[in-house]
């Protein structure tokens, strides 16, 4: 009798625990998809407007602050705070005397400036209307660091990464000043029909002068432009155009195949330049920008490419997430992209990844050191 009673109790307990276990939930952390902006976190979205699906700064690894959602339905952690109070142990953890690193310089008007410490985002700040910014980092151990600064323009185009290798000294205010972030730059056309115009635009510090450098790279390699079949030119480019680069709309190239043009940014830091390609030979070109403000010089911008050919092909509209080396298309080039690449090192690539490698990396069908170097160049943290 007693034994039967015990067995019954045991069965009831077993069934009840089975049901309890079946209630356990799961979370979706996936990447973005259409439907962004409807306040519903669809498959592929991290968040949607104010709907954060229970996420917070702490669930994203920060100490405190306010998590928000970007227009692309990605988590925005710029208002999250990371402080030096996470648990530690082992051999000690005696905190050092307060050490400070202060970053000051010029970015774009009202842009968010991001500071990276050894390739990881460590702080953000907002530049003033005049483009100046100051960001302080405290609670940092003394030692040798590579700090980096970058920003995005009003259209979400990233500047190039600017590195500062410094040795942080204990108990001192370590200053990194006169930072001058390179201008952003976009090109309106991937290919421009010879004789038509192509626009270059971007943002820099208000009223700065942007020196655009347009460089002839090579006579068109047909394999790189799939939409056309026949380019009837074979003349050596250097023999066609020699002379200093001056004038608007009638550019010419000097002996190094380089055409330069200085334009002045407006009060918000926007600049634009229209290039007439009538006098330029067909081929592949690159364009970079460098800002000058009084006696200060920025570094060189990210390089953009375009082709002078036989037809007009507009650049992709979705420039925000068209970042080279952004493997998982989350608008960042960071440790996730690095992790995905590590997975493919010394593995045969699958068809889907081959197409991504072709567009985002060097397109040689394998993942190797060259692809990692491209990731390092386009790094945003």
């Amino acid at each position, binding site marked *: 009798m007693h034994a039967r009673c015990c067995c019954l109790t045991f069965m009831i307990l077993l069934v009840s625990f089975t049901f309890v276990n079946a209630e356990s*939930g799961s979370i979706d952390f996936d990447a973005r998809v259409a439907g962004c902006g409807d306040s519903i976190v669809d498959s592929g979205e991290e968040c949607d407007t104010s709907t954060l699906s229970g996420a917070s700064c702490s669930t994203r*690894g920060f100490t405190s602050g306010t998590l928000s959602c970007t227009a692309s339905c990605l988590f925005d952690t710029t208002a999250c705070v990371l402080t030096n109070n996470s*648990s*530690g142990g082992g051999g000690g953890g005696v905190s050092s005397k307060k050490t400070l690193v202060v970053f000051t310089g010029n970015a774009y008007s009202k842009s968010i400036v991001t500071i990276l410490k050894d390739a990881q985002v460590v702080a953000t700040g907002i530049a003033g209307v005049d483009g100046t910014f100051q960001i302080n980092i405290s609670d940092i151990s003394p030692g*040798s660091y590579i700090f980096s600064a970058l920003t995005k323009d009003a259209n979400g185009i990233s500047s190039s990464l*600017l590195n500062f290798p410094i040795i942080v000294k204990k108990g001192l205010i370590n200053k990194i000043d006169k930072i001058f972030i390179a201008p952003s730059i976009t090109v309106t056309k991937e290919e421009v029909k010879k004789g038509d115009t192509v626009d270059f635009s971007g943002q820099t510090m208000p009223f700065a002068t942007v020196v655009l450098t347009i460089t002839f790279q090579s006579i068109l390699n047909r394999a790189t432009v799939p939409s056309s079949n026949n380019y009837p030119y074979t003349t050596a480019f250097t023999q066609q155009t020699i002379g200093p680069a001056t004038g608007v709309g009638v550019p010419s190239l000097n002996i190094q195949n380089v055409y330069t043009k200085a334009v002045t940014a407006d009060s918000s830091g926007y600049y634009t330049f229209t290039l007439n390609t009538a006098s330029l030979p067909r081929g592949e070109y690159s364009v970079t920008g460098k800002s000058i403000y009084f006696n200060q010089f920025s570094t060189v911008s990210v390089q953009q490419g375009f082709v002078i050919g036989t037809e007009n092909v507009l650049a992709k509209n979705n420039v925000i997430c068209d970042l080279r080396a952004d493997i998982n298309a989350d608008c960042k080039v960071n440790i996730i992209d690095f992790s995905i690449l590590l997975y493919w090192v010394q593995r045969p690539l699958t068809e889907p990844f081959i197409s991504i490698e072709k567009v985002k990396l060097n397109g040689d069908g394998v993942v190797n050191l060259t692809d990692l*170097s491209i990731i*390092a160049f386009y790094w945003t943290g």
Partner: protein
Amino acid sequence: MIYMNTIRFGFFCLCALSVLASTQTAFASTLSFKVTHNNDIQYKAVVLLNTEGQTINTISSSMVLPASVHLEKISVGNSPVSLWVKKPTTVENGAVYFSGLIPGGIISDEQELFSFTFTIEALQEPTLVFGETSILRNDGYGTPTPVSLLEKYIRADTIPKTIESDLIDTELPELFIPILSRSELSFDGKYFVSFQTQDKESGVVSYRLTEGLFDWYKNVESPYVLKYQSLDRNITIQAVDDSGNIRTAVLLSEHPLVWYRYPESIAVSFSAILLTVFGIVFFLYRRTKNM
């Protein structure tokens, strides 16, 4: 006369070649060793990079250690390499391989990549050399730079002695934020966590990770594919430096299991109940038998 002209022509060619060679090496990134004598038996070598005015962002190389050299410890604490593809840790087939990235690039005429301490067998005068090396420019294309590799012949009486105070590393590794992610492109679409930090004194030597309450810490490397893909457990990652200091980072689950809902806790509870039930049955049986 013809003989003199031949000599002059030969001299001219030699000069031209030497100028060409010097031009070539002027643009070559250089790897070298700087060796000092720590004490009577121990040496310290620093692997140095000179980028010769170019900005580089990727390096891959190896250093070949002769059999008479016994590696003791490698420190990457002062390295500018923040993302290691292959961290220099151990000797494999007589060489220490290393490769990694410096996002944004670096330009330097004497940059420490890492350092190591070693001993040498008595009466031996070994030479440290580098193996196959690639150094890539920070130009968005991964263009290789010419490389110059300088070997180091070690003869005890020519190595300078340094007195290094034994500083105790009490600093924790740097703060870090692990990132949880999933991509159809890798790891069979499974969730994985990526993490990286540095320790500026003795260097990070290992990472340890647990998933949930009932997991043991295990040594892992980034990226780590999660064992529990339902994401209902907090993930705790510890970075441990060479002095044993530990920096802990926690990724909180957005819908964490309460303790009694863990399968492990259910198993424990179930076992406890089972033992209790059998205990009661045994007690009643003994009591009935005694009556």
